[in-house]
């Protein structure tokens, strides 16, 4: 590929996204907006899985933490002074707990969206990686985390809204959420956040840190014998992945207006991974496209034939992993390899028969 081609493609994609309100209906724009919010999580997963080789099956947890923190704030600002959230009343609480009211101030809420998922991710990663447990074990532990998180949210109804989750919030920083102009602004904010996350990832790829991550993915012990401690690198990478997930969750919840345990558990976490796998786990542009493709696909299939979605995502997993491990981003390379093979085969036809016989024997 020509050197200018990739940045040119990225810029074209950005331009198409920025201009989307001009050519998309409000409905499709709102879909695109929430999927772009998901793409921020995918970029984090790309760093974590594609670059460091750490597979997380519990990314929904960090996404959910970001979303819940923001929604707690939104619920609080919608209240009259002295009131408490409706579901708390129904559950028989007599006052709003302190860890809720903490997020009343927008600045605290914003900081919480960033800090809570990041710290949770960093803490888990450090505890596991520092003991040199990784790979499959880590994937299984993160899955158990997703399960435990969702069950916890459901059971602590008085504090989390339980199975139905939290909804009914109307204003953000004084703006009405349903207002079309706010929706458009939210869309652009999402595009901006995604672009910033993308540039951050590109920069990471160029730093020594990024190179060490690749080295860890390809052979953890080798980098250890050069004096690097993989646990520290993987923890930071995973914390960044957690931060991205939190931002993604907070933006997503603004787009859809509801958060519930069903959105953060085992299944959604796995769907986040499949989007990244389809796009190409170590390509930043690839995972953004993969996320859009898988989510629009999901929207289309599950409205046309609801029972087919689970079947399709299952098949998608098997096919991508076995046939296209580099995802969409691997297609140009695959194409090159195929044309190369065809070129070689046609070149061989011109070779003398004896030589051909020998090469075939080999």
């Amino acid at each position, binding site marked *: 590929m020509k050197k200018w081609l990739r940045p040119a493609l990225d810029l074209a994609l950005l331009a198409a996204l920025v201009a989307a309100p001009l050519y998309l209906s409000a409905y499709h724009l709102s879909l695109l907006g929430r999927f772009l919010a998901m793409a921020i999580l995918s970029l984090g997963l790309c760093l974590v899985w594609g670059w460091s*080789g750490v*597979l997380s099956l519990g990314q929904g947890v960090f996404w959910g933490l970001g979303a819940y923190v923001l929604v707690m704030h939104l619920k609080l600002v919608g209240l009259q002074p002295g009131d408490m959230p409706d579901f708390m009343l129904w559950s028989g609480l007599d006052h709003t707990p302190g860890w809720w009211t903490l997020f009343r101030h927008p600045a605290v809420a914003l900081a919480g969206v960033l800090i809570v998922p990041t710290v949770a991710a960093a803490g*888990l990663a450090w*505890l*596991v990686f520092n*003991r*040199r*447990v*990784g*790979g*499959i*074990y880590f*994937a*299984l*532990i993160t*899955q*158990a*985390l997703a*399960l*435990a998180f969702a*069950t*916890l949210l*459901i*059971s*602590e109804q008085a504090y989390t809204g339980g199975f139905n989750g939290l909804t009914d919030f109307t204003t953000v920083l004084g703006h009405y959420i349903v207002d079309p102009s706010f929706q458009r602004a939210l869309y652009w904010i999402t595009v901006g956040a995604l672009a910033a996350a993308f540039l951050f990832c590109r920069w990471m790829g160029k730093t020594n840190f990024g190179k060490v991550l690749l080295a860890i993915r390809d052979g*953890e*012990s080798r980098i250890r014998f050069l004096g690097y401690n993989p646990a520290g690198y993987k923890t930071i990478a995973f914390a960044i992945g957690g931060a991205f997930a939190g931002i993604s969750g907070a933006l997503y919840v603004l787009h859809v207006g509801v958060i519930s345990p069903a959105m953060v558990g*085992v299944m959604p976490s*796995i769907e986040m*991974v*499949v989007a990244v*796998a389809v796009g190409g786990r170590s390509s930043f542009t690839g995972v953004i496209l993969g996320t859009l493709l898988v989510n629009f696909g999901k929207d289309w299939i599950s409205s046309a034939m609801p*029972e087919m979605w*689970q*079947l399709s*995502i*299952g*098949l*998608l*997993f*098997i096919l991508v*992993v*076995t046939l296209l*491990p580099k995802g969409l981003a691997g297609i140009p390379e695959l194409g090159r390899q195929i044309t190369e093979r065809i070129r070689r085969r046609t070149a061989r036809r011109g070779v003398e028969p004896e030589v051909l016989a020998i090469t075939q024997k080999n």
Partner: protein
Amino acid sequence: MGHLAVLTGQLFNGISVGSILLLTALGLALSFGLMNVINMAHGEMLMVGGYVAYLTCRFVHGPAGFLLALLFSFLGAAVLGGVLEVTVIRWLYGRPLDTLLATWGVSLILQQGARSLFGAIGVDVVAPHWLSGSVAINHGVLAGLTLPYVRIFIILLTIVTFALLLLFIARTRWGLFLRAVHQDREMAQALGVNTKWVDLLVFAAGTGVAGLAGAALALIAPVTPTVGQSYVVYAFLVVIVGGLGSLLGTALAALLVGLFSSTVQMFTGVSLSDVFLLVLVIVFIQFRPRGIIFQRSRVMKEA
């Protein structure tokens, strides 16, 4: 009912939950130790075993019906496992994380398949006549305690299966091959052991035992398309705590996890016990990152 009776009842429940966990985790531990592969569709083997038991009991009545159901559950899940090994897992050798994802895909397809065939609502396997009823204790400090026959049967089934498996590994030719491949795959291959067959056999046997677990579970809970998924996450934790491919470690870990959850549930309820279990596993890793039983070997493999 006295405190002691309640406690004993919970311990008994813990052991029976641990039994099903052990049956589920055995296959996972075997294939993880041997092939470094985790089969995310393992829970669906449990589900398949449950549905096979359901079908068998519908068509075969009488006291032998359930015993036949156990046999068919084992065979059905084993054949399915064999097919999975040959069509998917074999091709992803040396890519453990990719195997995990591909088998997750298989698990989704199997779940949807079951939903289309049997519906989303669970089906029940009615325990045969000779398993209905329970041991009731009416006197002494344990007065009020009842131990259902079904749960006693599950515990016995697990003990017998575990013993047979150990015997198979220790005494038979294929068991010897298994140990050889486990210790040094290349060397075993060089000595003429057909490692592909060993992998296939062990994988199928492991999924078969999970099928057995599914049939046993069907006695105490309805079979649903997602019944496996809810159990298998705990089985994964059992494998982590048990140590890489150690059967004894797996047994201890299953018992530990079963007892832990049923005891914690007494105080906190089901959902918090999940959280505490996860915390326990993470704390456990701090002290024994390689599991309860880990053999020191020359090459320290990356887990």
